[in-house]
């Protein structure tokens, strides 16, 4: 009788689970400038370990710019500059003694258009391993990685074939395999499925559900339904037009995906997810 009468405090349990989650990234007032132009304005966000966090928003709202700050890929643009503080496990990513190459070893990235190297499937996966000196048991590592990327069964008989002979969806999974081969902690995905057909997209989404058991995943997507399907947390970046007329991205709302899609707090978020405003 007691069991039936006791109301399960679902909200309470969830709060507890959240408190136990470690924070992988902490952004405090992070702004990104390209030359004099501000692309992203004062983002404050905590990204949690082993969850999938999606970043959604209209074009030009700085989603790609922001995700690239997380592994210092913004360094590749000479005019890019970051203000505020971005910490990875407590370490300031943009601090003076931080080596961006080391950062990128721990925080991997997969891009919108699949970009496998024009080498064999095996060599694509082994590339990072060889260069970073993780050469022991290469065959086993390659197999383990391809299994983790749900690609092994499809390619195990043709590892020496060129990666360029794979389909788009397979190539993208290969890129994911290549990224996880070097055992990063975080995987960043910048619109990973936007160049793929629905079946390939579905395969990538299933893969993400599996990968989040071991990796923290951040994904930028312009497909809201995809964010709704795969993400645990969702951040909505909106477009802000300054009085001077320039456009910059701001973080409007960041919450559990369920909340964003059933009852968002901010009317701008509501406007975007219901498709009323681009």
């Amino acid at each position: 009788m007691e069991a039936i009468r006791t109301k399960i405090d679902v909200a309470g349990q969830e709060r507890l689970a959240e408190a136990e989650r470690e924070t992988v990234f902490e952004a405090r007032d992070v702004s990104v400038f390209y030359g004099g132009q501000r692309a992203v304005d004062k983002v404050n966000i905590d990204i949690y370990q082993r969850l999938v966090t999606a970043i959604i928003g209209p074009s030009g709202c700085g989603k790609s710019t922001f995700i690239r700050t997380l592994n210092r890929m913004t360094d590749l643009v000479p005019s890019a500059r970051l203000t505020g503080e971005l910490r990875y496990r407590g370490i300031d990513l943009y601090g003076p003694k931080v080596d961006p190459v080391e950062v990128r070893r721990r925080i991997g990235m997969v891009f919108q258009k699949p970009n496998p190297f024009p080498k064999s499937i095996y060599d694509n996966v082994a590339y990072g391993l060889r260069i970073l000196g993780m050469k022991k048991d290469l065959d086993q590592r390659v197999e383990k990685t391809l299994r983790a990327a749900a690609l092994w069964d499809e390619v195990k008989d043709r590892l020496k074939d060129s990666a360029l002979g794979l389909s788009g969806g397979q190539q993208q999974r290969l890129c994911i395999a290549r990224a996880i081969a070097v055992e990063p902690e975080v995987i960043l995905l910048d619109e990973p499925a936007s160049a793929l057909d629905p079946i390939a997209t579905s395969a990538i989404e299933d893969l993400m559900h599996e990968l989040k058991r071991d990796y923290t995943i951040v994904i930028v997507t312009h497909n809201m339904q995809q964010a709704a399907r795969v993400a645990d947390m969702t951040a909505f970046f909106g477009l802000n037009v300054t009085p001077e007329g320039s456009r910059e991205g701001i973080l409007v709302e960041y919450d559990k995906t369920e909340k964003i899609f059933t009852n968002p707090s901010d009317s701008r978020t509501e406007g975007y997810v219901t498709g009323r405003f681009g």
Partner: protein
Amino acid sequence: MAEPAFSLRTSGRLRRRQLVNRLMGALALGAALLAVAVLAIVVISVASRGASALNLAFFTQNEAQGFNPTGGGIRFAIVGTGVIVGIATLMALPLGVMIAIFLSDLASPRLARITRLALDVTNGIPTIVVGIFVYTMVVAAHGQSALAGSLALAIIMMPLIARSSEEVLLLVPNSQREASLALGVSRWRTTFSVVIPSAMGGILTGTTLAIARAAGETAPLLFLTSLGTNATADSNPLHPLQSMTLAIFKYSELADAGFQAKAWATAFTLMCFVLVTSLGAKMAMARYRKKLGG
């Protein structure tokens, strides 16, 4: 079934179009045939004029001593060209590729423009001037040598290799570089492990063209290595060595028909040398491409 609103039957316009198409096709084919014909004519005329001197001994023996218009061969010259051009390639190729990397990856736009201008100007310097330059720099103090010849040829080859390599390096999509960098691979490793292998085809092609050009140079070698021996197939780069071009020059100046034939035969040999180098590079490229499955 009702008549369609417009007629799909052939009209005068269609016939005219078909005629124009056929005419253009014929012109294009004609142009291609012409190009092949020119090459064929050149090869055949050179070969036929040198035919009398072409025999096995021509390739395997060194020049016969004394006045002997039909005896002996040009082995010394073949070896000489090989050494001079080979060393020049060894000098110019890495330098050219590094310059290309600098231009495509590292230089600011302004610096890149200046460098490209310098390369283009160097490319335009008459080769005889390059020869004189190397003469004053090297030969005046140390005497002639094949090495000096290689140096001059390297100066001539370098802009060609640099510019064509730069072009192909730029053609490698940035997404490839990004992919490697995102793995935590340094910039230099990325360039050597991803970008250059991808661009290899273009680099080889540019190098082959440069080799072809260098192998055909005569003027600079006149200053730098013309005192080489023709009696032996010397291959010491510190000695002056003869080249096929110098041999052609020398034989063409001698009146005897035998020597004249030797000149043509040497020319033919040089052409074959260039042809074999080109084909070899193409085959290597094809095999490389097949390996990549591109």
